[in-house]
C-alpha cells in the first residue's frame, strides 16, 4: 500500500510543486470532497496533513499535491514512482456540505487550487452552477487549470504579475463579480493561504454571501486527540481536524490562526538546513 504510481512535477522552480497518484484503495473508496489525509514520509517522519486533490475509487488511488516548503515535503518530493509513503491515514475531517445551493464560486489560491478541485466537482455534480476563480503569483505557477475547467462551468484566472488572466488577486475578481457583474452568488468556498482566505471572507461578508473556508492548521494526530489544530470560530475553540476543516469563514479568527501557524518556524528552519545536507532514506 501507499505506493506512488504516478509523479507529476507542476513546477520545477523552488519551492517545487509535485503531485503524486498513490495506491490507497480504502481511502479512495471512503473519501468525500473536502477531506484530507495525514501522512508520514519515512521512519522518523512527522505527521503532516495534506488535502486530497483527486481520487479514483475504482482504481483505488488518491492524488496528493504539495509544495516543498518544509523538511517533510522536501523529503516527500524526493520519492519517485515505485517508492512507498510510510503511512497514510484518512480520509479525515468532515466532508464539505454539498447540496444544490444555486451558484457556487470556488476560489483556490496557489496550491489551494488542488483541494478546491474535488469540491468544485462535487458541487457541479449536485446541480450547482460552479464558477471557479484560480489565483497564482504568475502564469507558470498556475496548477490544475484543465482539471478545474472540467470541474466547473466557468473558470477565471488571476495572477499577481499579470502574466495570465486578470492582473491582481482573487479578491479583485470576486469583488468585480459581485459588485460590477452583479452575479448572484449563493455560496463561496475558498482554500488558499490564510491571508487570502481572510480577505475573501472580508469581500463576501458585507454582501452576506455564505463563505466556507477550509483551514490548514498545524496538526499532530488528526483524530481530535491533541488539540494542536485548534482555532477560534465564532468565539469558540474548535478542532480543525474533526470539526473542520471547513468553517463559516465569517466566524473564523484568522489572525489567531496565522499566529498559531508560526509556532515552529525556527525548528522548521533547522530541519530544512539539515535536510539539504542529507540524503533522505526511502521505504
Amino acid at each position, binding site marked *: 500500500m501507499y505506493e506512488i504510481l504516478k509523479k507529476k512535477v507542476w513546477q520545477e522552480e523552488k519551492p517545487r510543486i509535485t503531485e503524486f497518484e498513490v495506491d490507497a484503495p*480504502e*481511502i479512495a473508496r*471512503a473519501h468525500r470532497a473536502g*477531506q484530507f489525509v495525514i501522512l*508520514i514520509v519515512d521512519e*522518523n*517522519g*512527522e*505527521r503532516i496533513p495534506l488535502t486530497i486533490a483527486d481520487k479514483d475509487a475504482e482504481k483505488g488511488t488518491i492524488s496528493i499535491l504539495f509544495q516543498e516548503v518544509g*523538511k*517533510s515535503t522536501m523529503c516527500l518530493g524526493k520519492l519517485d514512482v515505485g517508492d512507498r509513503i*510510510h*503511512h*497514510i*491515514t*484518512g*480520509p*479525515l475531517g468532515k466532508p464539505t456540505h454539498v447540496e444544490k445551493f444555486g451558484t457556487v464560486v470556488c476560489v483556490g489560491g496557489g496550491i489551494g487550487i488542488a483541494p478546491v478541485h474535488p469540491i468544485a466537482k462535487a458541487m457541479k455534480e449536485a446541480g450547482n452552477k460552479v464558477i471557479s476563480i484560480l489565483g497564482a503569483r504568475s502564469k507558470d505557477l498556475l496548477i490544475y487549470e484543465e482539471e478545474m475547467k472540467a470541474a466547473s462551468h466557468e473558470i477565471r484566472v488571476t495572477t499577481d504579475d499579470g502574466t495570465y488572466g486578470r492582473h491582481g488577486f482573487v479578491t479583485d475578481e470576486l469583488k468585480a463579480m459581485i459588485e460590477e457583474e452583479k452575479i448572484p452568488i449563493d455560496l463561496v468556498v475558498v482554500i488558499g493561504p490564510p491571508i487570502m482566505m481572510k480577505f475573501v471572507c472580508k469581500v463576501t461578508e458585507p454582501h452576506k454571501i455564505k463563505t466556507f473556508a477550509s483551514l490548514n492548521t498545524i496538526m*499532530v*494526530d488528526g*483524530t*481530535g*486527540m*491533541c*488539540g*494542536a489544530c*485548534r*482555532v*477560534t470560530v465564532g468565539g469558540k*475553540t474548535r478542532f480543525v481536524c*474533526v470539526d473542520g476543516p471547513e468553517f463559516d469563514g465569517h466566524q473564523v479568527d484568522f489572525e*489567531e490562526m496565522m*499566529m*498559531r501557524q*508560526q*509556532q*515552529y518556524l525556527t*525548528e*522548521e528552519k*533547522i*530541519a530544512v538546513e*539539515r535536510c539539504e545536507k542529507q540524503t533522505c532514506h526511502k521505504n
Partner: protein
Amino acid sequence: MSDEKQTQGAPKAKPKKPKIPRQAMPEQDPHVRAKNFDSVTLGYADEQALTEASRCIQCKKPLCVQGCPVSIDIPGFIKAIKEKDYAKAVQVIKETNLLPAVCGRVCPQEEQCEQKCILGKKQEPVAIGRLERFVADYEAAHGEAPLPELPPKTGKKIAVVGAGPGGLTVAGDLIRKGHDVTVFEALHKAGGVLIYGIPEFRLPKAIVEREVDYLQKLGVVFKMNHVIGKIRTIYQLMKEDGFDAVFIGSGAGLPWFMDIPGENLNGVFSANEYLTRNNLMKAFDFPNYDTPIKRFKNVAVIGGGNVAMDSVRTALRLGADNAYIVYRRGREEMPARTEEIEHAEHEGVQFKNLTAPVRILGNEDGWVTGLECLKMELGEPDASGRRRPIPIEGSEFVLDMDAVIIAIGTSANPLIGQTTPDLKLTRRGYIEVENETTCRTSKNGVFAGGDIVTGAATVILAMGAGRNAANAIQEYLETGEWWTPNGDGEK
C-alpha cells in the same frame, strides 16, 4: 546465596523473626534522571525480589486479590517467586493479566492490592507491583514467551477498534479461542495511551512493542492508520466486511481545555499534544526525528493526575529551569499515583497547590508570558468526596511562564458515536453498556470497554473490561443471544 547470608547476618537477639522491611526499588539518581528519558526505576535484582517475596505471609483468604481489579492470584505468583520458579510466576499472572510488565509499572497499587495487604496494617504492605514487574521483566530477559497452541480456526471474525490496553486484551483472548481478530487503530503505532501518553521514562516503549509483536505472532492482524468512523464505519465492518462481532476500545482521547482567556496562545498545549509529540513522535530527539517540540524554560502544568505528572517531568527532561504543577486542591487530593508525585518532587518539580489558573498572559507575537492564578482554600467535600477548593478573594498573582500545559482531563472522542447512529451514548458521550460484565452495547454484536465506557480510568480497568468483553463475545458467538436495552433493542 546472598539472600541466605543476609538472614544469617541478621541480629539473633530477638526471639521473634525480625521484620524485614519493604524492599526499596533501585532508581536512577533524581538529578541525573531529570535530564534523560531512560527508565526512572530500575527494577528488583533477584535477591531483592526474593527478600520482598519472603515478606508475604500467604494469607488463606488473601485480601490483596480482592483489591485487584482483575483478581490476579497474588499469593500464588509470590509463592512461585519464593520457589524461584519465575516462569511459573509469570504464568500465574498471565492467567488474568496479559500485560504484567505494563501493570507492574503503572498500576496504582497503593489504592488496589497493596492497600488491602494485611501487612499494611502494622508495617508496610508487600511490594506486589514491584514483584509483578520483576517476573515480567525476567520473562522478557529470558527469551521469548512460548507461543501457546491455538485451537482450530472457528471461522468467526472479530473487529477490535483501538489498540489500547482494552483492545489488546480482547484481541489476545479471542485469538486464543481460534477466531480471526483484526485490530483497527487510528494512529500509526499500537498501544493507545501506553504508546502515545505514558512517557518512556515510566514505561519503555519496547515493552509495549514486544506485547504487540507477540499478538501479531499469535495471528492478530493490525490495521494501523484506520480511523473507524472515517475509513470504515462500524456498520460497514459488520454488514460489508463480514465481522461477526465488534469490540470498541477507543479510549477517552478528547482533551479538555479550561475555557480561560489566552488558551490559544502559542506555548499552550493539551497534555495529549505535548506527550504525543514526545512519546509517539519522539520529538525529544529532534532533529533526528522530524516532529518538533519547544524546549521551554518556565513551564506550568495544570492538573494533579498522572497525566500532569508525566507532562511536568517531560518538561524538566526537555530542559526547563522551572517546572511547576499548578493544582487547585492539595497534595492529598491529587489523583496521581503516590510514586509519581514523589518522583516528581525528587526531580525538582515545584508544586503550586491550592492554586487555580484564571488567565494566560501573552505578548504581541502571541506567545505565552505568564499565568495569572488565584489562591484557593479547601471547603466541604464535594461529590467526588474530595474537599472542594474555594477561591480566596483578592489573592491573584502572576507566575512568569513560557508554556502552559493543560492536563485537566479528557472525554470521549465523538467520531464513532457520530457515525454509528444506533449506538447509545451516555449524556457525556461515553458508550452505554448493559453492565461491566457483559460489555454489550445497544447495537447487536457490538461490545465496548475501557475508557470509552468509564471515562478516563486506568490501564488495569481497561484490561479487565477487555477480559470481560472477550468472554461475553465468546458467549455471543456460541449462543447468538443478545439483550433488549429498555425493551427497544436492535432488530
